[in-house]
């Protein structure tokens, strides 16, 4: 164990390489953990997963009274999450673990944070103490490590252009550095779920009942967290802002950058193909297929970037004057995609006809949602 990290640290940050080493020291396999002696560990693991599903404040809690259970239950919780095969549970678990760690990391001393970054993530990081007029940048992180994670954040302050960059390093304060660490943890949990090892992983039989319990819980919460849209775009479920932009396009008007971005991201996110999106634009006078395709593919995360862009929130659309004629449902959502989800789930019966031709649902998906 590293001199700097205590057993308590390993409990706080069970993702650390040192925690794995700690567990390895016990010479335990996952099946061993199912023995009655470890029932506390199993219970805690299940609790971790449950809490991440239920969400809310303190989704992932910490029990420092029993560091051993805390450390041992983490890989078991992860195993249950991967074994569920539910992509959104993986995301959910990763997000809540990241949030929990971020809160704790922010309070740590700089040398410990640097140690965690180096030893568990292999980051190239040094302690600096750069004092600027408004801030104090304590860390110096290698550019490549920064760029591995920071593009996940979309606020302008995370753009490399707006960072203090010098000789291959990005300078960061403790708050930003903790945030990056936590986000990297999240990315690792999610990425690992795509690896063969996690995909082919077989849960020990004794743990199956716990997995079933978790799956049952998932089923009950599905409505809340549904992030998979039905196949085929349900035109009738689009919110007024998107319908208005689509109508402008059909009329051949040329759009502001934000309007283009909004409709492109929206359509891609509800499952429209790149070609389908391009078709929307084909009436516009200055349409340049090659250029547009490149832009749409980029937004779809096909060229270069791995990230698929999400459409802007209502608040943003509003400030760009794109929120036109919001309806009743609009009053209850803060994101156009939520509007769409809700409408799709509600089916055509409750959705007031708002399209310019008053067409109602009936396409595949609108009804298929109801179980």
């Amino acid at each position, binding site marked *: 164990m590293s001199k700097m990290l205590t057993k308590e640290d390993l409990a706080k940050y069970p993702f650390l390489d040192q925690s794995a080493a700690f567990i390895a020291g016990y010479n335990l396999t996952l099946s061993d953990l199912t023995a009655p002696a470890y029932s506390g560990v199993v219970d805690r693991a299940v609790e971790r997963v449950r809490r991440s599903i239920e969400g809310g404040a303190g989704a992932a809690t910490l029990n420092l009274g029993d560091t051993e259970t805390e450390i041992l239950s983490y890989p078991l919780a992860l195993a249950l999450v991967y074994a569920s095969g539910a992509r959104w549970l993986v995301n959910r678990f990763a997000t809540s673990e990241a949030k929990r760690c971020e809160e704790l990391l922010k309070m740590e001393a700089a040398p410990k944070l640097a140690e965690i970054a180096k030893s568990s993530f292999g980051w190239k990081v040094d302690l600096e103490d750069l004092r600027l007029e408004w801030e104090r940048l304590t860390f110096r992180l290698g550019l*490549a490590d920064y*760029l591995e994670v920071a593009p996940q954040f979309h606020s302008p302050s995370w753009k490399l252009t*707006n960072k203090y960059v010098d000789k291959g390093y990005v300078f960061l304060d403790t708050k930003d550095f903790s945030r990056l660490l936590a986000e990297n943890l999240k990315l690792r949990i999610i990425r690992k779920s795509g690896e063969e090892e996690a995909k082919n992983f077989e849960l020990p039989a004794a743990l199956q009942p716990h997995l079933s319990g978790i799956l049952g819980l998932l089923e009950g919460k599905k409505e809340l967290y549904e992030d998979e849209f039905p196949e085929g775009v349900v035109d009738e479920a689009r919110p007024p802002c998107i319908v208005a932009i689509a109508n402008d396009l059909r009329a051949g008007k040329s759009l502001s950058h934000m309007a283009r971005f909004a409709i492109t991201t929206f359509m891609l996110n509800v499952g429209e193909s790149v070609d389908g999106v391009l078709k929307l634009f084909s009436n516009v006078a200055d349409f340049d297929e090659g250029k547009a395709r490149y832009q749409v593919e980029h937004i779809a995360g096909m060229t270069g970037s791995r990230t698929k862009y999400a459409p802007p929130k209502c608040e943003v659309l509003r400030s760009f004057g794109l929120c036109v004629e919001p309806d009743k449902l609009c009053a209850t959502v803060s994101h156009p995609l939520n509007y769409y989800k809700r409408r799709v789930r509600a089916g055509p019966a409750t959705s007031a006809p708002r399209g310019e031709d008053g067409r109602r649902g009936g396409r595949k998906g609108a009804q298929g949602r109801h179980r």
Partner: protein
Amino acid sequence: MGGGGAGRVHKVVIDEFRNYYSRLPAEQLDVKDFVKREYAMLHFGDQTMVRHLRFDSTSELRRRLVEEAPANVYYSSAYYRDPQADDMNAKGWEGADLIFDIDADHIRTDCKESHDTWACLDCGCRGRGFPPEACPKCGMKKIDTVTWVCEGCLDTAKAEIFKLIDEFMVPDFGVALGEIEICFSGHRGYHLHVLSDSVRGLAGDGRREIADYVRGIGLDPKEHGFRQVPGNGPILGPDMRDGGWRGKIARAIYEFVSGRSQEELRAVVGPVVADTITKSKEKFLQSISDTPPHWGGMRGYSLESLLKIANAAAKEHVCNIDERVTLDVKRLIRQPNSLHGKSALKTAEVSYSDLEHFDPLKDAVAFNSGSIKIYVKEIPRVRIGDCEVGPAKGTEMEVPMAMGLYLICKGAADPRL
């Protein structure tokens, strides 16, 4: 794609390209981790690229070039486990060099007025210089261009590549000169390849951040410390010695205010503030270069005006790269020392120390002997090596081989045998 395509194929060009490759020592085709690169070729008269090639050695590549004398040869910026697999996913991507492309074609230069023309394909309206986005007469966007490249264009591209290296790669990104390769593209610009291991694994979104950085996209001076202490307190801001865009903005403002006319300043911040600053220019410049700098060292302008100057000044420090090349993790780029099918010049590697005196129209010439008779359709003044011709139209002449092939490859002349 230059040099291939529908244009007429001339046997003399193919023969000369073949001669060039048979004279070329194979080791001049070497690139880092040669066997991990995908190769691609485009042949004269062809529209489609032959892709997914892999070579065991540079001599094997050279043999193929002699056999086929292609118009253009490319290799992948990416390193693959199986470069020859024809499904992109099966190739096994292992990383990629970071590439920057600077093309004079995309930069507005004054010389374009003297050598470029454009025509609207819809109404036939014509003009000279940098092509407009849309036809000024009918508003359509189908614009056909005839572009040439002159010393002025190439000097602008060179200045841009120096800026990229000296103001971004070395000071900000910490790239060592030993980790970069500079290439004249063989036609209108330069490529910079960054070969460091640290950038190899960068994904597309990380590369986009780098492209945005050198282009100054999303730059917000407020993020770099330009803020006012609440309660109408002093304006604080960056120091000229700071790293990254922070220091660049501070230096840019200094240059802008010291070097610009009052008129130009007025266009940015309006007459009142511009006049105030101009009147006490010395004092302004002095206080912003103090340690620590005083950005509100005198009365008569607001933080807002300062931000306007910052934005205008910063624009002049951005680097004009073609971002698509940089953010692509599997780009095909020109093979060093291969010929460019649109110019018959070679893609020439230049060391940083030679760059200043590098003359692409001379140092990238691949054919140094022989002459050829050509029929010239229409050309502006053109120089290749020490030979200058034009402007000329509808005339026959005998010129050195390099000049002849250049004009033929540009589609502005035909060989006369």
